[in-house]
């Protein structure tokens, strides 16, 4: 398949930044496409992982962050496990997600960043996950209240959703970790 990118010869594109973030040399990719053949979402996403790698080589810029696979990738790490050059392709996906969030790339179907935020906010607050708070925060954000809600009564009955949060976790340490993470981000900027 032909790949077209918006080329900007003045810049190095995203590749250096991603190499920095992941600590890997991406230039060794020789486009064998094993990552793509094992990727469970490659058929659903527009650009499969090997194509993302190729676009990076071609000095793609921020438009890469709008690719569907960035938020469709399920972090299964099949790509990394099978890459004959030992490239951690899944870490590249993690890095793309971080950049997409930082640079506020186009929001996508399903809203994984919102879910991740709802999840982590709950952890920051309670020290452990608390499904009801997390689901509420996520659903409020997506406004898709009805998805999955038909399952809640039977899940509650089977006690698959806890009514009350557990407060037994060491919340002080968790909060310090989140604070430190924030400080580190600030320092990077």
């Amino acid at each position, binding site marked *: 398949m032909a790949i077209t990118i918006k080329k900007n010869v003045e810049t190095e594109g995203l590749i250096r930044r991603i190499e920095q973030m992941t600590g890997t040399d991406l230039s060794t990719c020789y486009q064998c496409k094993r990552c793509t053949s094992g990727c469970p979402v490659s058929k659903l996403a527009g650009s499969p992982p090997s194509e993302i790698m190729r676009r990076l080589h071609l000095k793609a810029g921020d438009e890469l962050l709008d690719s569907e696979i960035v938020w*469709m990738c*399920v972090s*299964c790490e099949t790509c990394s496990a099978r890459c004959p050059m030992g490239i951690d392709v899944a870490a590249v996906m993690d890095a793309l997600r*971080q950049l997409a*969030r930082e640079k506020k790339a186009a929001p996508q179907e399903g809203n*994984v960043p919102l879910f991740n935020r709802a999840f982590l906010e709950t952890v920051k607050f309670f020290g452990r996950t608390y499904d009801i708070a997390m689901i509420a925060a996520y659903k409020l954000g997506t406004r898709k209240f009805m998805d999955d809600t038909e399952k809640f009564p039977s899940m509650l009955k089977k006690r698959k*959703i806890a009514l009350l949060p557990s407060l037994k976790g060491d919340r002080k340490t968790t909060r*310090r970790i989140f604070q430190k993470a924030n400080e580190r981000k600030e320092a990077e900027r």
Partner: protein
Amino acid sequence: MKYGYFPGCSADSTARDMHTSTVAVAQALGIELIEPKGWTCCGATAGHQTDRFLSVALPAASLAKVKDDGLDMVVSCAACYNRMKVANHEIQQSDEMRRAVADALGRDYDGSVRVRHFLEVLLEDLGIDKVAALAKHSLGGLKVACYYGCLLVRPNEVTKFDDPENPTSLDRLVNALGGEGLEWPHKVECCGGGLSMSRTDVVVSLTDAILEMAKASGAQCVTVGCPMCQINLDMRQLDIRKQMGKSHDMPIVYITQLLGLCLGVPAQQLGLEKLMIPAGDIVKTIGSAA
């Protein structure tokens, strides 16, 4: 045999059955599990998709709590297992990371607590023969598709769990208990568990493909060692029914539930009634097989 034990957050909610069956099986086998006080969330998929430091420091906080007792940390959730192993690895690899984590935890942690999946304890420490010898019931030829998913086997340099493409730990245990671990191609395919709520569309198609293959391979049930795989493969069958009009009716049971039944632990203690797709027939077969 004494271990630190990390139940993981899902032990209080979606995977209460995984937790109770692990505890019951451990007790039946004489394995002592000690929960460290104040353990906290490992950050799961959301953690590493968001920030590398968070994804290392969160699991390290709980690992540091067993460090001074000199115990291994036993984990039954494959996701927590994965995050803890990766955290240890990153701390060992980078002094900068180790220092940053120490700064956040208020104590140094060197990444040395051994993280073990409960299955590894059964197979490596206790030994398959001993486990089989303690079984009161046989699986009675039950055809089981053993599903490993991604988090136990990847990244293999870090988790070092079994063969990354064709693992056999679950199969060996199932076979030793008188069942039949099936040869099937989707052992390590991903079910998309981490995106179950945020990309239900993607996840329904991934789970459907796995369940189709299990059925085509002649499975009577699928067994798992991961709570995200369990809830996903189990609960998403309701969506598959609704959206695609297909009923797989495939029970998705934890390996500790199967093992518990063989050890003669009552079904209620194993949380079998919590499954969305009921496993009543399996319980009956195992209960009556000698």
